[in-house]
């Protein structure tokens, strides 16, 4: 069951900060979405192989042959903050 606590947990994992009202609102929305999807639980799937994807295709594979990478300046161009050829991000302590 989706409650405010779960919403807060998911928000924390995603580094999102939600107001009390938002938490309340999302708990309600998520609960109703999941409740709708949960109708599928009524189907007996005990004799059905788990399905990861519905398309009956095979994964295309690639030969191990290099293709050019982006030039570093191009690669970095969308970075909000760049220093000495690196993306600079707020200091994070080693996990």
């Amino acid at each position, binding site marked *: 069951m989706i409650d405010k606590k779960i919403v807060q947990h998911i928000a924390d994992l995603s580094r999102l900060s939600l107001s009390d009202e938002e938490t309340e609102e999302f708990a309600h929305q998520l609960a109703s979405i999941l409740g709708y999807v949960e109708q599928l639980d009524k189907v007996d799937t005990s004799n059905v192989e788990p399905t990861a994807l519905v398309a009956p295709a095979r994964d295309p594979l690639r*030969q191990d042959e290099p293709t050019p*990478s982006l030039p570093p300046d191009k690669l970095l161009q969308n970075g909000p903050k760049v220093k000495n050829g*690196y993306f*600079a*991000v707020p200091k994070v302590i080693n996990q």
Partner: protein
Amino acid sequence: MEFETVIGLEIHAELLTATKIFCGCAPKFGDAPNSHGCPVCLGLPGSLPVLNRRVVDMAIRMGLAVGCEISHNSVFARKNYFYPDLPKGYQISQYDMPLCTNGAIDIEAEGAKRNVRINRIHLEEDAGKLIHDQDADSLFDVNRCGTPLIEIVTEPDLRSGQEAYAYLTAIKQILEYLGICDCNMEEGSLRCDANISIRPKGETKLGTKTELKNMNTFRGVEKALAYEALRQRDAAASGEAIVQQTFRWDPDRNRTVVMRSKEEAHDYRYFPDPDLLPLVVDDAWIRRAAETMPELPARKRARFIADFGVTPYMADVLTLEAAIAKYFEETLAFCKDAKLVANWVMGEVLRFAKEKKISVASLSVTPRRLGALLGLVAEGALSANAAKRAFDIMEMQDKDAAAVVAEEGLTQISDTGELSKIVKDVVAKNPKEVQRYKAGETKLMGFFVGQVMKATGGKGNPREINKLVSELLGQG
């Protein structure tokens, strides 16, 4: 109460491919930061990962090498975590349907054998690199993102740090024989995490486990586990509960440091990656992989003992690396005396390679050259000492055995005529010693042999000299 230690290992091995797992960028480190990246590496919208065939091939070979079943269908999953070492916000890994399952290898530690079951081997991508100590910000380099990894996970079958060391060494050896990983723990191409718990002997339920990380050397793994096993016993003895925690090994202080406790543990919310279809591996592919497998260490070791009559210890050393085994076998093509060759490979050859910090394959003394040198030793033309000197010079000056032996005048004098002349000369010059010898002071034999050896400049064949001296003095 007597306790038993229970250990499970997770080994990450970087695969030696030309490109990353899901894109054509080269997985190179040490190059300029952010010089090996593309939209896939960066997780830009609209980019799609495409799996590298060679990665699958390498993982299948590793699976077969440790007796795993290879799944015909395996699935890639997203492991979600929010940390800036992966721009996508998730790592592509395998979760409930890995490529390889149910393997096992035999190891030996402290004289005891153990069968270690391997739960699974799965494919995943590596994260990028973050530098924390150069700037007020953390700095991110994408180059390592998407480097192909296999993760090899054991069942909790190991019982000590020594066993963990033996298992890790065995896995390293197999990875190297297959040529799929360079296994450098210091540089991170091989990484090892451990789960460890203790339980009263005879108990079958697992105790509360702790996790160990950051063990950057093979011995570090052994030491960290021994340390943690002891810490848990101490805690149990003083009635303290073991808390589920993650520790980091600090090699400078030889102790563990807490990284995080259970409350901070990650919640990865795995789900099948909709960008990748299930990986289908048919029997033909598995058969092809099996057919191209090299001879693996365990089998090579057994063959060396059976075919060449070397001792188990010698066989261990000679099969330690594929390159050493190859060098040994190639030398045998030029000198049939397997024990002589084995002793030299284990002695001079490994010593030189270690001193020069190179593979035996890169020595100037090639198997052909060593074989020729040892041929001279086997036929008595060269003493063991002269051969060692010749080996040094051959290695230093990049020359053949024949050339060095000739230039340095190292050939052993086995010619009885020449030697007997010198023996007679020595006997004639030392009448007093001859008398004492004849009076029963037989230990003077060594004196005469020494004098003759000196006169030959150390090149006389000791066995011949002994024979000649005792013949001459015996005749009296």
